């Protein structure tokens, strides 16, 4: 298989990254003591983080081919292989996942009081599924991992969630799975048409336009629900608000990226002509997401709901960058995926910190703590700046690239994103002002303790690193994005030639 570059390292690193969390989760069944369970899962997740660094160090940014590849027959009767590999698009997402899981475990140290072992079990299962989704290069493997992530997330919300957890968890599960079943039918149709489930090989086939349209629509429904794009976003506020902190962080930072990853990995290369055909609709839906998400966030009194709607808006920028089909847009979109993961993850962590103290997510119950918790408000302010794409922070680079790409491609759309950017500043500043100075704060609250500082600092450092020196991150994606654009241009030329 000439798309795959076999492993330079002498052990299957991707399989290890996928199955080590699962093994660690199974070991949890043998542990009786809760403290030991927490320490064990933190240890395992840090080990996995360490093991994922060679992916970055030994990554060859000059090629678009899939590296650290593994390719083993799985179900020969149906031509299903166990194929793994990373390229510039998926590498950063895997690293984001392995970074966030230890942070989530640290954040849940005192947050979760009952059934701690099972909570950690679900978190580690999520890590398995998420890394699997981003590294799978065979459609059946991808689908298994994609669906496998539903059950732990459902349990995270349904067992450890807030007051409306029943509603939120069922809505999340059914909405997401309903989209995914169409994905299943589409991938079977692709297999029957091309004879293979292998994603790189499926990209090389040219399908008829009608076939592409149906496949694209089936994929788009599943991914649009996941992203989420308005009007398929209604599960997100419920799920985010009711989930525990670690669940919200993983949901916002990793699960939402699976939708946009799906667009970039599947819709654009496999059904390029249909993507070009449907791009205007998706661009307009992105603009609607940006502006609608922003407006609704402006009116929220629940902190988590506000950040949830801000996620809808930020992901609107990502899909905007994807479907504008030029280099700046795509690179900006992929970078924004990472940035949003870092920033919104950090914001949810901040909300979790204050929730542990005040047991309320409402802004007015937490108002005015600026004098009492200065360190906390410092971090919150820093991450708010990042969320509104202040220059110097990571989101600025991402949004700038997306905006450059949008203006290059379509001036009207570019102009329409400006209100979205302004809205982001508006709702974040409103939140910050009320929390920091908006009232008489509860003097009983303690400022950040060492554990909380430890898990917020890496995220803050990343915000600054990507903000001031985005070069290394963008270099990783160059080859893959260029290859993707070539695939789109070839398809466009083919369509024009006919």
């Amino acid at each position: 298989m000439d798309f795959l570059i076999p492993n330079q390292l002498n052990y299957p690193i991707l399989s290890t990254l996928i199955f080590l969390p699962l093994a660690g989760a199974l070991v949890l069944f043998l542990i009786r003591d809760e403290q030991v369970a927490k320490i064990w899962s933190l240890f395992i997740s840090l080990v996995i983080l360490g093991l994922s660094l060679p992916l970055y160090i030994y990554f060859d940014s000059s090629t678009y081919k899939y590296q650290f590849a593994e390719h083993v027959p799985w179900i020969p009767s149906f031509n299903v292989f166990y194929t793994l590999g990373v390229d510039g698009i998926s590498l950063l997402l895997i690293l984001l996942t392995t970074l966030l899981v230890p942070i989530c475990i640290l954040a849940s140290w005192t947050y979760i009081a009952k059934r701690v072992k099972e909570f950690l079990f679900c978190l580690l299962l999520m890590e398995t599924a998420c890394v699997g989704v981003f590294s799978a290069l065979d459609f059946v493997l991808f689908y298994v991992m994609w669906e496998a992530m539903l059950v732990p997330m459902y349990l995270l919300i349904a067992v450890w969630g807030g007051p409306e957890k029943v509603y939120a968890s069922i809505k999340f599960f059914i909405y997401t799975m309903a989209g995914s079943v169409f994905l299943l039918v589409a991938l079977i149709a692709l297999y029957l048409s091309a004879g293979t489930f292998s994603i790189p090989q499926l990209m090389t086939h040219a399908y008829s336009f009608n076939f592409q349209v149906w496949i694209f629509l089936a994929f788009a429904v599943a991914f649009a629900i996941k992203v989420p794009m308005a009007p398929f976003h209604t599960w997100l506020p419920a799920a985010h608000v009711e989930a525990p902190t670690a669940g919200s962080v993983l949901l916002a930072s990793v699960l939402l990226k699976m939708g946009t990853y799906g667009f970039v990995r599947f819709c654009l290369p496999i059904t390029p002509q249909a993507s070009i055909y449907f791009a205007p609709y998706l661009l307009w839906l992105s603009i609607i997401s940006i502006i609608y998400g922003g407006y609704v966030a402006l009116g929220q009194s629940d902190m988590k709901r506000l950040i949830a709607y801000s996620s809808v808006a930020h992901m609107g920028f990502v899909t905007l960058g994807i479907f504008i089909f030029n280099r700046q847009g795509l690179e900006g979109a992929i970078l924004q995926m990472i940035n949003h993961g870092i920033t919104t993850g950090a914001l949810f962590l901040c909300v979790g910190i204050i929730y542990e103290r005040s047991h309320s997510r409402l802004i007015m119950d937490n108002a005015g703590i600026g004098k009492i918790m200065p360190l906390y408000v410092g971090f919150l302010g820093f991450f708010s700046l990042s969320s509104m794409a202040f220059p110097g922070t990571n989101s600025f680079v991402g949004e700038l690239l997306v905006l450059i790409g949008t203006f290059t491609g379509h001036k009207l759309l570019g102009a329409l994103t400006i209100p979205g950017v302004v809205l982001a500043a508006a709702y974040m500043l409103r939140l910050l002002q009320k929390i920091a100075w908006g009232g008489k704060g509860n003097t009983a609250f303690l400022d950040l303790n060492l554990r909380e500082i430890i898990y917020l600092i890496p995220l803050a450092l990343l915000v600054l690193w990507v903000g001031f020196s985005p070069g290394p991150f963008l270099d990783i994606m160059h080859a893959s994005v260029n290859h993707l654009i070539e695939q789109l241009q070839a398809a466009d030329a083919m369509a024009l030639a006919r």
Partner: protein
Amino acid sequence: MDLRLFIPELYLLFLALVFFAQSLWKSPAKLNQSLALGLSAFGVILCLLTLNQSGELFYQAYRVDLFSQGFKVLISLGLFLIIVLGRDLKSIDERLHPEYFMFLGLSSLGLTLMVSSVELLTIFIAMELSSFSLYVLIPLRKQTFSTQIEAAIKYIIFGAASTGIMIFGMSYVFGVAQTTYLAELIRKFPLLISEPVALTGLIMVLTGFFFKLAVVPFHFWTPDIYQGAANETTSFIATMPKLAGLALLLRLVSIGGPQAMAMIQVLVLLAAVSMTFGNLVALVQKDLKRLLAYSSIAHAGYVLLGVLSLNTIGFAAAIYHITAYLLMNLACFLVICSVSRQGEDVTVGDLSGLYRRSPLLAFTLAVGAFALAGIPPTAGFTGKLFLFTAALDQGHLALVIIAAVNTAISIFYYLNLVRSAYGQDPNGLPAVSLNVPLRLLSLALIAAIFFLGVLPAWFIDLARKACSTLIS
């Protein structure tokens, strides 16, 4: 006549006779249970040993090949698992335990005879043997409950009616083709299938097996019988007749030949209606056995997806899915039999807080429910993947989309079970303790569901090999 080919059946007859002997005196319950366990376990081993036998018996009316022996392994395995599951038979009167095991053995004997029969009258005899044993089993429930007699009468009447239709259809088939041997029917029938009388006859014959599989519109017996019979009996009825019913369906549907468009259309219609009806009605069920009954109607629809593709891969997919269904259903029935304290019916509310009361049972239920819903990486998902692929390959796009939508619908009620077990508080319901065999069985079922789902290649290849003899 090589009687070595007949070993599994003779053994099951021996098992039934042992319990007949036990029923003649006041045998202690513990002895009966240990005997049942030991004898059925040995039966599984015997069937595994005879897996590769092949030959014909009884004037070529009885064929032993990989297909039939494979199904016999599954049937004997199912019998063993059910006996472990319901070992103390708390809802059956202790005096009647030997009779209970005897009829279980006789019904399994009938089912194993069914999967090897390749001649219409032999099929009929085998089916009647298994059905009559079940007719007696259903009312065997302690007098404190009242639903079993009604269930028994419904089952007898429905069963007799569907058998009557089947025999009537057999008479038409015989009239058209002048033979009752399946081998010759496969040769002659495709040429005659265009005649309405031939098609009608074939559909009527298939009706008997649609009844066993609980396909709409032959499903009316299912919810009441599942709910009315004892929990252990229902675990048998929910899984075993479907195995044999599918085997015979696969043998008989090949008669029509791959060009039988009208028959395929009938199957498509039945599959679509079964899936949709089963899933929609299951949404409102509170009683667990009734819910599983409607879910079995839906799964019969899914299995038909594989049957109607009329090629080796589709048949293999159907066999895979019914095996996965056996495991998933037994996992759910294990929970039902354990949670029900005196053998009463279990409702979704009775599962409240099962996580606190018995973590292992809650996990078993979750795995079984998610597998039935078709969530990776369980065997239920892989089965659906294979079935959808086989059906879509033959061009049944609309049917596969209906199946996909139904999968999404079904999540709701399966999720309800998991929510009740994990998300709610026990509300004063007592803890459930499991003895060691039940614990081992739970773990084994969970492991089997995941193993079969993640590594299905060996099973699918075996199934394809078995089915290759069918279609040639």
